[in-house]
């Protein structure tokens, strides 16, 4: 039942915040914060409780589940379950959810109620994606998180918001429909061999099908997920959406929504179509490596701070794609570590852009420079996250990237070598941020407020988490260990 509460808390909180907003903007904010803290508490409780894995299906490592009938006439049930991977993603979502509510505290002053409704509902949708074990339910949540995010971008976004919002929506929705076609085809193939209509993940695992069918179906899922990830050549929606979204939207988009793509690859593509995915792994890894380098090069060329961070996301998620399709335990652990660390570090960088934009009213790095003297605390915190993002040993991102490269080495040597070059480029663009924004001559004048208590309260836990992940990543691997066997091909 805890799983249902994970979804009910943000959903109900969103509605309450919307209702309460006319009575005072603070109400909406406090209600949202309470809802997200409740989610975080539940996630931590689930983690602490741990306990022996329950046996509910062919894969191991499930901690808890919830199954209710929903549309039995079509073989659809409301089936949620949680394993180590889901748990990590839920924790990440809850942490970033709390952070995004806090960061919007003064950022959003218009239509506060509706804003928090959308924020919390897109978080609820993403949580549902991480928990759903019925393919129809999964698709339901997959689509559900888009609409509120669309509103977040198109109402509270920056200058070019309408264009960015529509582009985001059409890309993800169209690719989602491809996945729906694949899901349906899979269900019918399964019906052909078993005579039963079901959308249940466990029932559909190991469905016998001929070679080309499995390739096509796998591609339907794969494209939907790498559009969301995003990987080259489907990344074009991302820079616009991230740049135009309000800060909280960017944080949720980068930290959580992109992870749903990676999660889908791990949970569905490999296990449902093991042979096809294995056959396809070279192309997928190639796309990952292209993403690493291409994203990094484009990031370096940007003048807009937020766009730079957005392109760096493409680069970082290239590592995730590379790691997932290396199909071994080390690379997969690295990919998941990279997902968590990227969520935290990029989320924090987006918040810092927001912090700077609130003070300078620009994101253009050509108009910044020499800010270290004016706002040393912001500078120091930015330096930390920039170093995390470039993969400094001792921080979480390094562990992730290192394990991915270590694991993909035996899978494909050439691609690993090329991909490793991405680390060098990422150092260049990351340090360029520091140089252009915080060092050099001061371009503007006037006194800027340095980082306040509220902002630092948001940043501090994220710094702690990244350091912990960097020095002692073992707990994360412990959570992950039981489920690894289930999703890797034998």
């Amino acid at each position: 039942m805890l799983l249902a509460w994970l979804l009910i808390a943000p959903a109900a909180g969103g509605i309450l915040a919307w209702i309460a907003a006319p009575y005072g903007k603070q109400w909406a904010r406090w209600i949202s914060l309470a809802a997200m803290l409740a989610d975080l508490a539940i996630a931590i409780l689930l983690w602490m409780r741990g306990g022996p894995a329950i046996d509910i299906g062919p894969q191991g490592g499930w901690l808890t589940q919830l199954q209710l009938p929903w549309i039995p006439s079509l073989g659809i049930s409301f089936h949620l379950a949680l394993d180590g991977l889901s748990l990590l993603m839920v924790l990440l979502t809850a942490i970033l959810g709390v952070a995004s509510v806090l960061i919007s505290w003064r950022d959003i002053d218009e239509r506060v109620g509706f804003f928090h409704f959308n924020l919390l509902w897109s978080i609820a949708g993403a949580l549902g994606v991480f928990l759903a074990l019925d393919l129809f339910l999964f698709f339901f949540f997959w689509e559900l998180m888009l609409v509120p995010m669309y509103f977040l971008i198109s109402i509270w976004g920056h200058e070019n918001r309408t264009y960015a919002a529509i582009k985001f929506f059409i890309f993800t929705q169209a690719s989602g429909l491809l996945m729906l076609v694949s899901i349906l085809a899979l269900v019918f193939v399964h019906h052909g061999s078993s005579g039963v209509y079901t959308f249940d993940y466990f029932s559909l695992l190991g469905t016998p099908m001929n070679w080309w069918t499995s390739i096509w179906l796998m591609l339907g899922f794969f494209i939907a997920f790498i559009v969301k990830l995003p990987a080259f050549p489907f990344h074009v929606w991302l820079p616009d959406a991230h740049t135009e979204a309000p800060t909280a939207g960017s944080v949720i988009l980068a930290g959580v929504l992109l992870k749903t793509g990676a999660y889908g690859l791990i949970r569905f593509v490999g296990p449902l179509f093991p042979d096809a995915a294995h056959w396809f792994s070279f192309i997928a890894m190639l796309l990952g490596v292209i993403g690493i380098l291409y994203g990094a090069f484009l990031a370096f060329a940007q003048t807009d701070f937020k766009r730079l961070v957005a392109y760096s996301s493409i680069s970082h998620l290239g590592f995730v794609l590379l790691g997932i399709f290396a199909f071994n335990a080390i690379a997969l652990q690295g990919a998941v570590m990279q997902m968590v660390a990227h969520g935290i570090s990029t989320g924090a960088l987006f918040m810092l852009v927001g912090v700077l934009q609130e003070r300078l009213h620009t994101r253009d790095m050509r108009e910044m420079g020499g800010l270290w003297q004016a706002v040393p605390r912001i500078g120091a915190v930015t330096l930390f996250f920039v170093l995390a993002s470039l993969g400094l040993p001792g921080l979480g991102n390094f562990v992730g990237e290192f394990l991915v490269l270590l694991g993909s080495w035996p899978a494909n040597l050439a691609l690993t070598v090329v991909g490793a070059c991405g680390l060098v480029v990422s150092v260049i663009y990351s340090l360029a941020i520091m140089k252009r924004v915080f060092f050099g001559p001061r371009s503007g004048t006037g006194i800027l407020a340095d980082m306040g208590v509220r902002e630092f309260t948001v940043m501090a836990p994220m710094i702690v988490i990244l350091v912990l992940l960097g020095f002692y990543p073992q707990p994360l691997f412990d959570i992950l260990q039981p489920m690894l066997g289930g999703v890797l091909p034998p």
Partner: protein
Amino acid sequence: MTLADLYTILPFDVMTVGVVVVMLVIAFYRHHALTLGLTLLTIAVAFYWLFPTGAILPRQVTPLFIIDAYAWYYGGMLLVTAAGVALLAYAYFHEHGGVREEFYVLLLTATLGGMVLAASSHFASLFLGLELLSVSLFGMVGYTVRRAGPLEAALKYLILTGLSSALLLFGLALIYVTLGTMQFGVIVRVLAVSNTLNDPYMLIGLALIVVGLGFKLSLVPFHMWTPDVYQGAPAPVTAFIATVSKAAVFAVLLRYWVEIDAYRFSTVYLVLTIIAIASMLAGNLLALMQHSVKRILAYSSIAHLGYLLVAFLATDGQAVSAVNYYLAAYVLTSLGAFGVVSVLSSSDRDEADDLNDYRGLFWRRPLTAGIFTAMLLSLAGIPFTAGFIAKFYALAAGVSIASWWLVFTLVAGSAIGLFYYLRIIVALYATPAAVGGTGRRTHAGAAVAGALALAAFAVAVVWIGVYPDPLIRFIQQATTLT
């Protein structure tokens, strides 16, 4: 015809009596609210009698009608829709003044025509129902005689609908020439023993029927009248055309098709596949270029009929339940969408049609705009709405017969469709330039009628979108055709 037969078609009887009563009452005492009340009462009584009579189904009533669960499912759908349109029309005409009471007589006759269509098992009753529906609709479209737009639309509708009826009639005649019968049941038996699959008269007849019904369903390339008539007609009438006339015609088409197993005629099947693809593409692409909300919705309804054909063309058992569900969802959603247009039109402007009229509506009238958003999302097929399950069902039907052209056109069409639905939604949530006039209200009763109807549609759309199981189960059990 026996008394038992009359009892079986009691909902028809009630509607017929209702038409006469409403007409007589208007003749003696003209009162808008009273007329609405009588209309709603007639519909409610007819709806009530669907259930007791449903217990003795199926039953062939004269060679003309087959009363079965399928017929009553559509009968119920049409009655509910008609009640919704009546409420919307009350709100609309209350503001527009003029002579308004006769509208409800036409509404009842048109609905009766639709119900007859859904239950017809004979070419004669098919044609009778279709003409009853079309002729009444002609009167409804041009009802506000003092305005140019509706008159033009009515004339266009009259000419094209007359032409399509003529083509249909010719097609029916050709089939009669080939098979010597006009009764669906007998046609099935004749087809089973005779080899007429490639008979030219038969094929031409089927083709003409497709053309005739294609006009009524506004399938591409027979769709030209749709945007003009939808835009020109008063908003509640547009809602009626988009829902009742489409659902009734589709119901009879599906019944006819499944009974004679017309899937066997591979040429006709191919033609319908092409029509479906053309409707999905043309409807969606043309909608992109519109600035009028009614025209956007008109083109979107063309696209939706294309999606519906995808479900229709699935040869296995999925087809009937998919079409039945899709139509229910589509009817509710369209009714809601045009209902919002109608309610907004009824305040102080002629028609709330231009996209600019909707700018910032959410910040002035959040509930109306919220309902409109839900309807648009349902048309786009987003979760939590009936449209999502409907699109899912249509896709499932397409995938089940592995017709990938249809499936991928549906996917592409939906992606294009998002663009124009989002355009309206963007306008709804845009920062308002100035406080527009659509916030003013003049008459409480009219407002309540419109709001009541809209709220009911919104609840229904969300309800069958979140918990579709009862409806699906009902459709699967009750409305299969043999």
